[in-house]
């Protein structure tokens, strides 16, 4: 017991000696030295605070930008949205096309803007019909800002009274003779675009065979079961759904295909739009596309057309009045001669 006590005592003395030695090595600062240390410490803390705060603030914009780019890049989200928008134009705007290669995108903070020009074939030339600018907040589009350069643009808000191609069982909202008069009073040596409504539903190839020569069928309006009423089940007006009648040689056009017919591409596009209907409905003029029921109708009844867009020399287009399958005609755009 006594040995153990002595051992503790020795350890304690040893520790005390070491501590005293350490204390002797510490030299107290003078008053000026202490002030200097405090000043250096304050300055260092201030400098560190400023630099770290600045770094965090400067990181905000790059991090937000990078996050947005990654959002649109991962899984090809931006390309998919562009694809839906451009294909919506092809199937909802009669005789309108675009150059997908020239679609411009601009990525902002959690948003994207796309801009592109649209074209109409009148005669043998593609004329710029205007441009679209669509803003996306993440994947939700706003209504497109359109700047159309057309003389007779289609109404922005479609209704029964402004429809240019009508179903055989629907009432024609314009005076047919007035339109034929317009066409007859246009000078020869011009080319024009006309919207025709048929007397009956026809297969596309039958319509092609019934047309006179020296004109070009540009776009076919397809019967989707809703064209008689021209509104969806909820009473919201709809616009025609259709597809280009010709092979489109424009780079990246969905209708530039050798393996599929335009009808098959049209059905593929409708399937794509059905899955992205909210985007398509914002881009299309009609605020309801009812694609699920219209696609089901087309799959059940096949592709039958009730209207079409035709372009060609004005004097040739006058011959359409003698085509018994054509019920009504409405004149669209007119341009100077470019047919040859």
């Amino acid at each position: 017991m006594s040995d153990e006590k002595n051992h503790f005592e020795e350890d304690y003395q040893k520790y005390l000696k070491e501590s005293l030695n350490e204390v002797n090595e510490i030299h107290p600062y003078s008053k000026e030295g202490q002030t200097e240390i405090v000043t250096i410490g304050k300055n260092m803390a201030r400098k560190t605070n400023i630099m770290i705060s600045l770094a965090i603030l400067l990181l905000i914009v790059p991090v937000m930008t990078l996050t947005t780019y990654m959002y649109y890049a991962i899984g090809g989200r931006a390309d998919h949205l562009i694809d839906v928008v451009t294909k919506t134009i092809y199937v909802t705007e009669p005789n309108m096309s675009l150059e997908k290669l020239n679609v411009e995108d601009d990525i902002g903070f959690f948003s994207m803007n796309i801009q592109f020009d649209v074209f109409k074939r009148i005669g043998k030339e593609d004329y710029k019909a205007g441009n679209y600018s669509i803003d996306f907040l993440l994947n939700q589009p706003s209504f497109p800002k359109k700047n159309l350069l057309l003389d007779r643009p289609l109404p922005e808000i479609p209704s029964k009274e402004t429809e240019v191609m009508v179903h055989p069982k629907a009432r024609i909202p314009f005076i047919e003779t007035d339109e034929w008069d317009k066409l007859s009073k246009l000078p020869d040596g011009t080319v024009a675009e006309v919207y025709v409504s048929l007397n009956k539903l026809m297969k596309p190839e039958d319509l092609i065979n019934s047309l006179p020569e020296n004109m070009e069928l540009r776009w076919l309006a397809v019967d989707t079961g809703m064209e008689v009423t021209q509104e969806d089940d909820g009473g919201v007006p709809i616009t025609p759904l259709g597809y280009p009648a010709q092979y489109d040689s424009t780079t990246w056009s969905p209708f530039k295909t050798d393996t599929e017919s335009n009808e098959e591409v049209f059905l593929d596009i409708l399937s794509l739009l059905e899955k992205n209907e909210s985007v398509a409905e914002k881009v299309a003029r009609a605020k309801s596309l009812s694609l699920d029921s219209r696609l089901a109708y087309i799959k059940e009844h096949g592709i039958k057309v009730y209207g079409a867009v035709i372009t060609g020399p004005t004097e040739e287009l006058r011959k359409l009045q003698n085509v018994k399958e054509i019920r009504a005609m409405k004149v669209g755009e007119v341009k100077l001669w470019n047919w040859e």
Partner: protein
Amino acid sequence: MELGINKKGGNRHLPTISGFLSFLIALIALAGLNVALLIKEKVFPGVFIVQLPILGFFLGVIGLFTRSRSRLYAIWGLSLCIFLLIFTLLMVVSSLSINYKP
């Protein structure tokens, strides 16, 4: 208790010069990048997203090799420079995958 100096200890609270330079360069590069992003410059100035971050990266690495000084600035400088280099890489990759045109 009064302030004193332990001869065995060093000046541990002061950062390394190269660490400070690395942090400073990273801040300058970040500021340049912010300006380029906010004015929507189509072509990013390479000096802010490549040259300066690489310089800052090496200075930051040098700043880490110290026993007696603080590595705080070196770590910040190094981290920011690595972020800037990764940012550049990811932006190039994502830009190419959005609406790519040959």
